[in-house]
């Protein structure tokens, strides 16, 4: 049982005109097995929250705390956070030229488990994960995200979620750019990974359609750098009907 606790998190980025505060005090607690949906307008800071938790160097934490089972996450390097059990499926996964998916995955799993996986079982695991997400086996030999379509990149992220087995996963717009079939396949992947490892999931999304496949326990409305309302699944339907006007103008 794990708990990721975010308290009063303030984050700024450096710009030509000095530091700009983007997160203005975020409070959020995610426990194993829970699914939290975060919805909010463009530019409200959802990805900033995700990247800040993962430790992207661009974001400066200026206040608040992030702890995983009581241990300070902010002090950790990016790889230490992954080893502690955090995972971020990125809105825009990065291309790494010349590094094959299979080499990347093997290096990552070796780092996370502290020892190289047995080759035979590992190859089987990867093959199975790829098949489950309807990815052609040839992807293993391709370079990480290089030339992948938008949807293929998202599948690749969820494949990593299944293989790397984190405690808490933040999925940043994993549903964007997926066709109807891919949305179902990817959602099933998330549900499978979640069920197998009791992962706590944060789902950042603009659309309720993914929530039909992945049932949220909590829905949070994010606006102007903080959470402005919280509720159950019914809140998502309300947002879809009414938009964010009442939160943005407030």
């Amino acid at each position: 049982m794990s708990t990721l606790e975010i308290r009063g998190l303030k984050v700024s980025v450096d710009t030509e005109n000095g530091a700009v505060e983007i997160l203005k005090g975020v409070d959020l607690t995610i426990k194993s097995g829970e699914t939290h949906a975060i919805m909010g307008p463009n530019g409200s800071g959802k990805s900033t929250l995700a990247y800040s938790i993962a430790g992207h160097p661009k974001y400066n934490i200026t206040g608040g705390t992030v702890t995983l089972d009581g241990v300070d996450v902010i002090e950790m390097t990016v790889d230490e956070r992954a080893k502690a059990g955090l995972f971020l499926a990125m809105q825009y996964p990065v291309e790494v030229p010349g590094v094959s998916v299979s080499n990347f995955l093997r290096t990552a799993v070796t780092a996370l488990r502290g020892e190289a996986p047995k080759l035979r079982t590992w190859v089987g695991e990867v093959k199975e994960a790829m098949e489950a997400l309807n990815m052609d086996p040839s992807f293993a030999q391709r370079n990480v995200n290089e030339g992948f379509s938008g949807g293929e990149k998202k599948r690749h992220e969820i494949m990593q979620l299944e293989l790397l087995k984190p405690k808490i996963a933040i999925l940043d717009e994993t549903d964007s750019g997926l066709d109807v079939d891919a949305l179902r396949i990817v959602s099933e992947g998330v549900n499978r990974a979640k069920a197998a490892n009791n992962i706590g999931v944060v789902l950042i999304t603009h659309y309720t359609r993914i929530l039909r496949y992945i049932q949220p326990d909590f829905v949070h409305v994010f606006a102007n750098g903080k959470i402005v309302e919280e509720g159950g699944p019914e809140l998502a339907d309300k947002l879809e009907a009414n938009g964010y006007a009442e939160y943005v103008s407030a």
Partner: protein
Amino acid sequence: MTTLTTNYLTPTGREEAWRFTPLKRLGGMHDGSAIVADRHSLTLAGSKATGVSFELKSSSDAPVLSESDDAIVGRIREAARDVAVLTISANTEVAEPIILKRTPGDVQSAEFARVQIKVENHARATIIVENTGDTHLAEDVEIYVAPGANLTLVSLQEWGAKTVHAGRQHAIVDRDANFKSIVVTIGGSLVRLLPTVEFAGPGASCELFGVYFATSGQFFEHRMFVDHKVPNAKSRVNYKGALAGDQAHTVWIGDVFIRAAAEGTDTYELNRNLLLSDGARADSVPNLEIETGEIVGAGHASTTGRFDDEQLFYLMSRGINLSDARRLVVRGFFNEIISEIGEEEIQVRLMDRIDNELAKAGA
């Protein structure tokens, strides 16, 4: 000391061709002060395949195939009494790579070596030259790829830390012939190579690949020249370099000349450099001279950059630590070219060496 007739060529460092090279570190190969060593360090490894001959000929029996205004090449041609000649006879297809090895010499004297590689009509071969150990070597390699022939030449500079190697690899590529060269420079104190190509017949093509990795104090220069002087020839150049550590210095010059007669030319050259630490310097100068507008394409690109933070972040967010992430990115950067060699064992060896150099540099 006898006066060599090439003295007039002695560079001062102000010449365009020499302005980057630290002349003092050339061991006197450029100004005639080097002691001329009496050694022939190039050997053929393994057994000779049918249709392949490798012999030492006297200079008079192996006249030069090309002109050069390079001071060191001039001195080699004066000093060398013999020429190592490798010939692939017409229509021969050599299945396995032919391995040539340069055995280490010494650094008190310099070997002035002439080499000729002749691939006769419609022959096909891969030649791998492995350079290891410490030596001073001035080398004039002339390559002739006859009509319809196909040569892949892999030149591996895996030298020891004291080596000074100044060499020209000049390929004359005839009608419908293809020349592919892969130059890897990852060892030595100073390496200055001139991979040059001269198209001698229409329909000829060349692909010139290269990687170099310089760490503290190393100077690696690759000075390309592709001479499009016949119609419908195609050239591709792709060199990638990485630098780590103080005073690491690399130079890449890409000269392409499209003469008036060279209609239908198709050329593109690319040089990318990865600066892995402060204090390193990468010079990159692409240069295209065009005398005819009737061409298929001509372009070049040159970039010099640092590690991409987004790539490192992505890898690290999957649990990979910083040094392993850097190693993956560097390997990935070089992989595109190294994989062109197509010999697994050699590729692994080169990548391991690159890993080691990277680890030593602490970048």
